[in-house]
């Protein structure tokens, strides 16, 4: 029980200093940085790794991206946990601005959604271009469908398509309609794992490395259009929003350089996002 008093390497004071350094470490040299609440599709596709270094090189502003489903991204931004919102659910974005959480919404870029499924295509969806008809056919065949089920932009689009198809998949929840409640990539992994059809944005699909024998079965329906929007979180609501740096990012993304950077991002020779800001610049 008795311990002899050896000379101590670790005095309490030294231990505290060391520990404080361990915990505090990285925050010491915080350059100017903004936080962007965004979607898994933009991150998983690798777009940010391509365009953000160009913006940071030009302005010195670091851009930190939190990639979650659109529903969660909007919720986080409403809580003031972010300076800029870049998501893809236009009506939810407009509601966000109307309710006073955002300053203004601008179109940034678009691509499209596709329905993917196993190469053998047991439900025979590849015969149609009509996305809603394809879903109705899928429901009739009883084939399994993997839904995001997470209130994300892709999930909202999927629900709109079901509504157009006249089928209510909620009745089959847990049966042939499987809601994964996960991000796009995780849902695709699940779909491939259980031979299910799924709706995905094209960018995530092209960049997805676990396709197995899956391929795109339905594409080209105008209803599969996928528009991304960008919004500055309203400083009147959340005074901590970094207005200047956040606006600088929005100006850059919507300006010629940002739009060109988006257009130049390719995976396997395919362009993933198409810039389409058409308003005045700088955006007002």
């Amino acid at each position, binding site marked *: *029980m008795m*311990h002899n008093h050896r000379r101590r390497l670790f005095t309490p004071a030294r231990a505290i200093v060391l*520990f404080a350094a*361990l*915990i*505090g*470490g*990285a*925050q010491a040299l915080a350059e100017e940085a903004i*936080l962007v609440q965004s979607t*898994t599709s933009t*991150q*998983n596709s690798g777009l940010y*790794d391509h365009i953000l270094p160009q913006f940071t090189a030009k302005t010195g502003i670091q851009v*930190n*991206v*939190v*990639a979650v489903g659109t529903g969660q991204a909007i919720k*986080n931004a*409403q*809580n*003031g*946990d972010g300076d800029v919102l870049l998501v893809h659910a236009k009506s939810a974005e407009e509601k966000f601005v109307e309710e006073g959480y955002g300053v203004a919404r601008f179109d940034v870029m678009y691509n499209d959604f596709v329905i993917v499924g196993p190469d053998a295509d047991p439900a025979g969806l590849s015969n149609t271009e009509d996305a809603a008809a394809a879903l109705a056919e899928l429901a009739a065949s009883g084939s399994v469908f993997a839904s995001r089920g997470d209130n994300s932009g892709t999930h909202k689009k999927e629900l709109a398509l079901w509504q157009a198809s006249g089928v209510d998949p909620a009745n089959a929840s847990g049966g042939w309609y499987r809601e994964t409640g*996960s*991000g*796009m*990539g*995780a849902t*695709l*992994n699940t779909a491939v794992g259980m031979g299910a059809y799924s709706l995905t944005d094209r960018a995530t699909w092209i*960049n*997805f*490395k*676990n*396709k197995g024998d899956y391929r795109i079965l339905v594409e080209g329906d105008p209803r599969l259009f996928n528009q991304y929007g960008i919004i500055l979180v309203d400083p009147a609501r*959340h005074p*901590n929003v970094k207005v200047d740096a956040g606006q600088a990012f929005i100006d850059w993304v919507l300006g010629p350089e940002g739009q060109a950077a988006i257009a130049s991002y390719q995976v396997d020779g395919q362009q993933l996002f198409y810039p389409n800001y058409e308003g005045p610049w700088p955006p007002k």
Partner: protein
Amino acid sequence: MQDFGSAFGLAFGLVLSLDPELLEIVLLSLRVSLSAVVIACLVGFPLGALIAITRFRGRSAVLVLMNALMGLPPVVVGLAIYLLLSNAGPLGWLRLLYTPTAMILAQAVLITPIIAALSRELIEQLHDEYAEQFQSLCLSPLQSVRALLWDARYGLLTVALAGFGRAIAEVGAVIIVGGNIANLTRVMTTAIALETSKGELALALALGMVLISIALGINAAVMSLRLTASRHAFA
């Protein structure tokens, strides 16, 4: 099964090339989880010892609660810390959300019950042996706690390792409060989750192997430290 083969290759390649991004992620993982363990031990050891040597009304309820909290779901801890640290939350003014500090806090909350409950168990057994001796020496509870903690130190090291294992392996809490931001709050587990969702299964598995090797290395280091120290003590 070819994923396993290529994962081994990738894991070796990553480690041998000392990939700077991987190094950063590994260092952050260690910084976060080790800090969380230190905090959890500072709270958990004395708390566990105190509960071990005292008898009070409702003690068994406290024990049940402590043991139950060992099973705290990381996602719930993450969510609670998020709500606290969010700008709309009571501690938003600290501006800690999406920083390593928030991740340390979340993991500390997650593992403190584990450390407290396990050290309570350990010290209560020791106290049964020592109780009479303490009484004859007229030690105050504080003195007893100090003596017990010191004598149980090797066992407590294993308790700390159990806490560390839980902290370094969890993903649910750090992904919510850290946000998995590249070069800022991305740790091993959130990087594995991200690569999995990209369908990069081999790379994800390779990162998992690196994580397991690190945990193995830390456990080996602590174990050898313990052996050296105990040899020294009995020399």
